[in-house]
């Protein structure tokens, strides 16, 4: 019963009927309940004809009016009624808060803005039966979402408390796919692994999983900083999702780049320092450069920001040589102009650092330094390859002294031993001359001012 006998009695008391007989209260309670139902079902008709799915106060008032009953004034608002809860000893009571309004304050308030006028917009819901993918129509993903709701619901129905891996959008199939792929990636069998990677790089229907793969890469890199094999796999996954032509990867770039940078410049990426972490760094650098090329158009600051990060690593003498290596490789891959502007001017200073490291009596350090040297040499080679139109310089001592001026003693030696030495020297000297000229130009300008 909605109204207990007690409340009927209370109401009777309040209107001045002190002692109500038991039979009457029961009958009243029953009748009141029935009348309420009657009014509500009448009001439902008004709701239905207004094509709404929520009953409003105005519906109730319309129903009362139809029944020739005075409507209840003072509750009709456009806003939905909010019920507040009050807990009592026996049961919770819900009530509508009746705010006190200060009339003076109300009068002083500025007038509320005029409500927006009803307007219409037109769009194609279907063109010859096909729903166009425009902003006004729901995305097909929404449909998948609707479909995927079902199995989750049925699980709950069975009483099995499964909290699905992904709370909202992922269908059961995709969840299974994701699990399967991540398991295969950990398998020692290279065939299984490569098949999984291939699947990621080809499959068309896994767009919803991109964010999970990005997440997977980030977590894997973070947790396995010292296991080279796992890191390599993570990089392979990153490459695979980038290569998949069906995936729209752009929004996830900012999440992916930190992982790649970690693999590029991290201090230690393997258990024992003798492992070949260099190739991992090379791969990461390659990926970063690809990303910069691909999205440089839409994100102008992307390359600049990455370059700045790498340069900072390159120029910080407190950082280990492994980090320096990564930075050099990364900068090299970013393009010739970066080499010209950021690498070459700093080479001499860096080489002095490297020379001092070389002199230290530690096999590991010397090895690392050699890698750094090679990286620098490689960057010079890239420079040379770019400016191939130049006449190869003669390897004379004049040239050499000029070169030493730019890149330092030890690197100059290496360059001279290199079989592309002539081209490198020419390219470096051109750059040096250009920069000098521009400097002079600037100085000249300053002087004339």
């Amino acid at each position: 019963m909605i109204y207990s006998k007690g409340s009927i009695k209370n109401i009777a008391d309040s209107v001045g009927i002190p002692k109500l007989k038991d039979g009457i209260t029961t009958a009243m309670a029953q009748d009141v309940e029935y009348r309420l139902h009657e009014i509500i079902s009448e009001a439902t008709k008004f709701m239905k004809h207004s094509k709404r799915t929520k009953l409003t106060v105005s519906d109730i008032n319309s129903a009362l009016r139809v029944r020739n009953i005075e409507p209840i004034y003072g509750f009709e608002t456009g806003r939905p009624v909010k019920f507040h809860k009050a807990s009592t000893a026996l049961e919770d009571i819900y009530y509508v808060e009746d705010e006190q309004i200060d009339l003076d304050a109300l009068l002083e308030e500025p007038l509320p803005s005029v409500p927006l006028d009803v307007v219409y917009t037109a769009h194609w819901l279907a063109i010859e039966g096909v729903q166009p993918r425009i902003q006004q129509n729901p995305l097909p993903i929404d449909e998948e979402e609707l479909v995927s709701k079902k199995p989750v619901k049925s699980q709950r129905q069975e009483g099995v408390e499964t909290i699905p891996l992904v709370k909202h959008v992922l269908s059961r199939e995709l969840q299974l796919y994701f699990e399967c792929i991540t398991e295969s990636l950990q398998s020692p069998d290279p065939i299984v692994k490569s098949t999984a990677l291939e699947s990621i790089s080809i499959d068309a229907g896994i767009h919803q999983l991109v964010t999970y793969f990005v997440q997977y890469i980030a977590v894997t890199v973070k947790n396995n900083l010292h296991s080279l094999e796992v890191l390599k796999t993570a990089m392979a996954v990153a490459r695979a999702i980038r290569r998949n032509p069906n995936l729209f990867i752009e929004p996830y770039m900012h999440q992916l780049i930190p992982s790649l940078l970690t693999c590029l410049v991290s201090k230690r990426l393997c258990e024992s320092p003798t492992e070949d972490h260099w190739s991992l760094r090379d791969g990461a650098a390659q990926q970063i450069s690809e990303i910069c090329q691909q999205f440089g158009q839409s994100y102008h600051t992307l390359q600049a920001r990455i370059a700045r990060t790498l340069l900072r690593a390159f120029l910080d003498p407190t950082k280990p040589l492994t980090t320096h290596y990564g930075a050099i490789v990364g900068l090299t891959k970013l393009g010739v102009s970066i080499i010209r502007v950021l690498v070459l001017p700093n080479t001499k200073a860096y080489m002095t650092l490297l020379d001092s490291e070389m002199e230290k009596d530690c096999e590991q350090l010397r090895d690392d330094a050699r890698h750094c040297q090679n990286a620098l040499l490689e960057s010079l080679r890239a420079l040379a390859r770019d400016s191939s139109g130049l006449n190869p310089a003669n390897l004379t001592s004049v040239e050499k002294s000029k070169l030493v001026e730019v890149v330092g003693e030890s690197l100059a030696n290496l360059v001279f031993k290199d079989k592309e030495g002539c081209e490198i020297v020419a390219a470096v000297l051109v750059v040096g001359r250009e920069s000098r000229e521009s400097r002079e130009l600037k100085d000249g300008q300053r002087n004339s001012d």
Partner: protein
Amino acid sequence: MSSGKRTEWPDDSGNADRSKQNASSQAANSSGSATASATGTAAGAASKQASQKKVEKIVLQYLKSKGYKDAEKALRENANLDGLETTLADLANAFPGNEVGSDASVPNWILFYNEAEQGNPDAYSQSYRELRRWIDSSLDVYKHELYAASYPIFAHSYMDLLARGLTEKAEEFMELYKGDHLVNHSKDISVFATLKTASHVEENELAKLFRENKYGVRMTRVGFELLLSFLQDHNHTLLMRTVNEHLNIRTVDGTVPVSSEAEADVGITGHTQNQLDDFNSQEIMLGSAPIDSFVREEVERTLQSEAGRRIKDAVSKEATGLLETFSKVKQENAANSLSARDIIPMPPPRGIEIEHQIANLKALRKRIALGPAALPSICMYTMHNTSNSMNCARVSDDLSLLAGGFSESYVKIWSLKREPLRGFQSNFHPAPINKEEDIETIREKTSSDHRKLIAHSGPVFGVDISFDSKYLISCSEDKTARLWSLDTFTNLVCYKGHNYPVWDVSFAPQGFYFATASHDRTARLWSCDHIYALRIFAGHLSDVNCVRFHPNSKYVVTGSSDKSVRLWDVQRGSCVRVFTGHTGSVDTVAISPDGRIMASAGEDQTVNVWDLGSGRCMDTMTGHTGSIYSLAFSQEGTLLLSGSADETVRAWDVKRSSTASDHPIIAQRREERQKRAEAEAEAEAEAEAAAGASDAMDVDAKEDKPGESSATAAGSKAVSEKSKRSAGVNGISNGISESKKRDAAGIWKSKRVVESDSLLKTWRTKSTPVHSIMMTKRNLAVAIGPFIP
């Protein structure tokens, strides 16, 4: 199959309770032995005498309470009941098992004693339980028809209990057995459950329907005889009486299809069987309206003059083409049109009809053929900032105007061509106006492309625009309909006649006439030039929710909350067809442009397609998950579009070949579909039953029937129902919390929808319920709905 988990039929009272019942019935039997000694079982003479005394006491008490002093005195003397001053409390003690409840009065007791059946308050419950048990154990072939027949028996038993003031018994009865019928009659049952006293039964709309009308049921001859003999053999006189008084059983040969709900004579129609047969065998003329001879000649003359122009340009070429089309149309029209005598009188044609006819011809030539393989383009008009206040919307046939009716009592119209809507200045001098061009000079200077029409004093529930986009008609909660001119944007006429809110209004295809549907259970026909209704279509048992004209204007179709659709003859004002089969109120109807087929839909989320000629249901289409607001046929009538509260527009295949609804292939397909649906429902119910059974105390494995695992198609429904029911019963035995859970499960189940195979395509909108959908003459679909953020 879950036979292992199925439980015994509900034994609603425990053992102690049963012994009480035995005792009470014994007492009852012996006391009433004068009238029905045959039913009396062995009872000792002594106890007989004792109980005789009790009866006399009761009678005495009754007479006393009623104030029949003489009779009381006479009884006292005759029966030698000296000094017996019994009180009500004594009386209650005198009868073992105070089933009556404390608030049952003595007259109730007397009432029961006068029953042919030696009734006790549990008589209904007991008999109904036995009936259910019997139905369940009967042959699969008859099960579903017996179940169908058990629903009205259930309803009347409940109301009888209430009518006798046994509210608690009635509630108990409802709680126990409502699970049987929730699948098909959940709406009714929720209404029944609100009834609490005898007076409610007398005044409730639905209860009155059940009490005053007979409930139609279809049964096979054998099934009917089985039922009768069961009731007779077991002396279920109460039920027998219900069957006799309130059921209208029609015996049919052969088998009754499982979905017999869709037949015209099932449920309450307000008519006896014979009347219905008469209705649906009345001849109706579905041909198209003939083209007026004046219009025909004028159209031909216009086209010929254009075609015969000297300069052969695009216009004349088009006119030649149109002329050809027109001759085709004329032929078709002549072949199946009505004679001029049969059509409703129309005012003499003005120029506008000729233009309209030519426009139609052009549209016909440009029409895109639609069908299951060629779906239409849909243009969606989304309304913004309505804040739930838009009740209805409509686009004019020529797609120039969009009109919406609002809760704030106004109608708003927009020009879809974004042209300014200019009325006339209120003060102007008529003198300088001599030519047509002069009229334009006195138009308002506004440049706004939308206008509000204000005059109603309540929410506007329906709008319609005439075929020539010159007039708009609106109806409102203020009990009136209003005619507006779309030239001056002013109110022309206010039509008063309905006594209650008017739900819907619709113009006739040729204009001039319009029809309204109202809360007062009538639909009315009006002509624009009369302020009173020309015809009142009365016969619906509840609100009339929607009204549409037949394309030849000779008939009107109405849909109602009484779950039926009716076809009315405009001239005679009488009902010529009744279509029943919906399980919820009917909110929208549509008729195919050729006038042969009608579709109806509403709250029950299904679309029914009817053949108007035979009155048969051609197809039942399910798939929507919200109530359906609007329907529209393509111009060929092969495709049906529906717009719904579930924010979708769906296209349905109207299978024209299936005009004979009892065609074996159709029936077979339907059965298969049904089977599929049932199989799903069954699996679900079983899972539920299993869940219920695991913690139920009264699992009875003896009920296992191995044969049932191979149940036939017809029986599978019954089986699934049974397992559902047993699940429900377990719920009750485990207390209220369990039954609540089951209710929730029931709601969830009712939300699951099996998509029927005639569903061709679903288009989703972005949180926009589709209020209205229509088809233009060129087969472009237009949908309107408010965006609800």
